[in-house]
C-alpha cells in the first residue's frame, strides 16, 4: 500500500518539488524499500540519458548574430511596441494552436491518472489556486480559465466544506478540480467534459477511493483517502440524489 502512494511522488522528489516533510518521508521509504529505490534509480537514469542525448548546442555564431541583430534593431523600432500582456496572450493562443497542430496522444485509464494527480497535489507545498469556501467565488474563478463552467456546490451543511479549486489535466484535456474537506481529509472533485474520457464508476487506486458519475455532459470523479461510505454521502449530495442524513 505504501509503495503505491510513494511511486507518484518519486519524480517530484527527483525534481526537488516535494515539501520538506514529504521529501523526508519518501527518502526514508527509499532506504527501506529496494523496489521503490530501484524505480527512483530508473528515473534518474532516464534523466541522465536524456540529458546526454538531447543536450544539443546552438551553432557557434548564433550569439554574435543575435547580438548584432538586437543592436541594429534598436535604432529602428520604437520601445515598448510589443506589450508584455500581448506577448502573454500570444503564448496562450500559441499553446492552443500547438495542441491543435500536433494533436494529442491516445486515451488512458482515468482511474490511475486521477489518483496520481491527487497524490501529487497532496504532496505539493502550495496546492490551492483559489482558496475560498464560497461557491460564488470558486465558480467564476474557473470560468475565466477553462473552456467550460464546472458545477461548483458547497456541501458544508452535509459536513463537507468547500475549500477552493485548482486546475489539472485528465486525458490530456483541461479539468477543473473542486476541493472539499472532511476532518483532516482532503477531497478532490475532478470535472471534465465527458466526451474526453469516461469517469471510473467506483474504484480504489494507490490507497485512494474514487467515485465517478456523468451528469449534464460532464464526467465527475471524487478522489480522496476518505472512506468510501462517507465519500458516497458526498457523491449523493453533489448529485442531488439524496439529502444528507443529518438533514432529517
Amino acid at each position, binding site marked *: 500500500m505504501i509503495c503505491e502512494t510513494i511511486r507518484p511522488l518519486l519524480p517530484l522528489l527527483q525534481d526537488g518539488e516535494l515539501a520538506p516533510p514529504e521529501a523526508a518521508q519518501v527518502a526514508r521509504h527509499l532506504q527501506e524499500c529496494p523496489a521503490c529505490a530501484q524505480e527512483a534509480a530508473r528515473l534518474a537514469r532516464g534523466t541522465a540519458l536524456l540529458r546526454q542525448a538531447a543536450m544539443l548546442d546552438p551553432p557557434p555564431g548564433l550569439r554574435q548574430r543575435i547580438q548584432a541583430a538586437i543592436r541594429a534593431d534598436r535604432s529602428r523600432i520604437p520601445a515598448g511596441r510589443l506589450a508584455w500582456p500581448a506577448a*502573454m496572450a500570444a503564448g496562450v493562443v500559441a499553446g492552443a494552436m500547438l495542441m491543435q497542430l500536433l494533436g494529442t496522444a491516445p486515451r488512458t485509464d482515468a482511474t490511475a491518472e486521477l489518483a496520481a494527480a491527487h497524490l501529487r497535489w497532496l504532496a505539493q507545498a502550495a496546492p490551492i489556486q483559489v482558496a475560498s469556501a464560497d461557491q460564488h467565488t470558486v465558480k467564476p474563478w474557473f470560468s475565466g480559465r477553462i473552456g467550460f463552467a464546472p458545477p461548483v456546490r458547497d456541501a458544508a451543511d452535509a459536513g463537507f466544506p468547500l475549500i477552493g479549486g485548482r486546475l489539472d489535466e485528465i486525458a490530456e484535456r483541461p479539468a477543473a478540480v473542486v476541493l472539499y474537506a472532511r476532518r483532516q481529509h482532503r477531497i478532490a472533485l475532478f470535472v471534465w467534459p465527458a466526451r474526453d474520457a469516461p469517469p471510473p464508476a467506483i474504484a480504489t487506486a494507490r490507497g485512494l477511493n474514487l467515485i465517478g458519475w456523468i451528469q449534464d455532459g460532464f464526467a465527475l470523479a471524487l478522489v480522496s483517502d476518505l472512506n468510501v461510505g462517507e465519500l458516497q454521502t458526498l457523491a449523493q449530495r453533489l448529485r442531488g440524489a439524496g439529502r444528507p442524513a443529518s438533514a432529517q
Partner: protein
Amino acid sequence: MLSRRPTARFEAEMLPHLPAAWRLARWLTGSATDADDAVQEAMLKACHAFDQWRGISARAWLLAIVRTAAIDVLRRRPANLVPFDQAETEMARLAAQQPDALATLAARRELARVRTALAGLPAHQREVLVLRELEGLSYREIAEALAVPEGTVMSRLSRARDALAAQLREPPVSRRGEGEA
C-alpha cells in the same frame, strides 16, 4: 522623454539563456535552422518588451516568447515540408569535439535512439521534458513558460516520462505490421 531600451541590461539578463532558448526551439521545430530563426525573432521581441517584464523568472519569460516564435515558424512552414532532422549531423560535430564522451558505436546508437524517441513524442510532451530534464526549470517556471497551472505541468510531465520510457522499451527495430492498429 523616450526611454532608451536598456540593451546592455537585456543582453546581460537574457543572453545567458540563449542555449536553453535554442534547444527549446530546436526540439519544437525539429530543425536547427528553424531554431536559429525562431530564437532570433524571439530575442528581438523580448528586447522590445523587456521593460514590461514583471515575471518571477527571466528565463521562463524568455522561453514563453521563444515557444511562441517556434510555433509561428512551424505554422509558416509549408505543410509538405518535412524538416531534415539534423540531430545526427549535429551529434557528429559534437562527437568530433568530444571523442571520449561518445567513444563507442553502441553508445552513439543508444543516444540516437533516445533522440528519435523524444522527437517522436507529441509536442506538448516534448516541450515539458526539454524544459524540465534539459534545462532544469522548476514546475512553477514551466507553468509560467507554458501559461498553464502547475497541476497541469505535473500531469504532462508524468505522461511524457512514461511515454518516453515506453518508446525506449520498444526494440530498436520497429515491429511494423504486428497488429499495431
